């Protein structure tokens, strides 16, 4: 299963981004192969509609779960219709490798 995590930077040591639509990077983590992929978010500077555009980006990668600090109002209903699970993590001090470790232990 593929899981998307919002990140503030492009290394495993960078912290989770508390916003979904305007995060700096998306990390696509594959639980089967254990691989991670960093995708820069082009929708970051959008005036409007950054959330839905980001949903399209992660959905096109076949993600089934999204970890972020906060989701906007438009995003929630789109994720629901796509059957993608949302995980809200308020702890902004957690790094990407911390979260990946949690997800690995979960398996």
């Amino acid at each position: 299963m593929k899981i998307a995590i919002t990140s503030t930077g492009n290394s495993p040591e960078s912290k989770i981004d508390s916003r979904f639509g305007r995060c700096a990077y998306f990390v696509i983590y594959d639980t089967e192969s254990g691989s991670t992929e960093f995708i820069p978010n082009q929708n970051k500077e959008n005036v409007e509609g950054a959330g839905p555009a980001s949903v399209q980006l992660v959905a096109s990668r076949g993600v089934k779960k999204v970890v972020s600090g906060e989701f906007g109002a438009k995003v929630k209903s789109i994720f629901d219709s796509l059957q993608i699970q949302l995980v809200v993590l308020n702890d902004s001090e957690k790094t990407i490798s911390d979260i990946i470790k949690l997800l690995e232990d979960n398996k």
Partner: protein
Amino acid sequence: MARPKRIRKMTNPPHFKGFRPIGLPEENNPVVLNFEEYEAIRLSDFELYGQVEAAQIMDVSRPTYARIYESARRKVAQAFVQGRTIVFEGGKVYFNSEWYSCNSCGCWFNHPSKELEVKNCALCGSIDIEQYSDDVLQSAIEDICICPKCGEELKHTPGIPCRQEICPKCSNMMVRKGGPYQHRNRNNQCK
């Protein structure tokens, strides 16, 4: 036109689709048990709530709850006696259980496929999870009178209508917290 039905609140839908009698050929005339009827049977006969409590949990009036419950029992009896299949389907409901919180890692998560039961945290896999419930539900069970003018809250005394209580701060008439009057007042303030 009839007044629209009040939307019934449900905690969790059943994680299977229905029942089938043993030793009878498959027939396609099932009894359709609405989700609200399933919930009524669960609250009254499984959780053993009284009708007043159960009605508050489902966010409907006590007589409405009684009607849902009666219809549910008749359908179950019909299926038992005539050996018909029961299918859980439809009904005017919304689910309370969409969000869960995990006490181990402190995250929140929702649940896209409602038919499956949630047992583990989506992030850390801990079994120490809690279902999110909102304040309106809590106040419906606790019964609080609220002043629509200044927001002062008093504990409701059963048997005395809230509007007979007087706010100790501004001598205004009180209304029930989370009740229709409070919502109406709140709507008026928005305009």
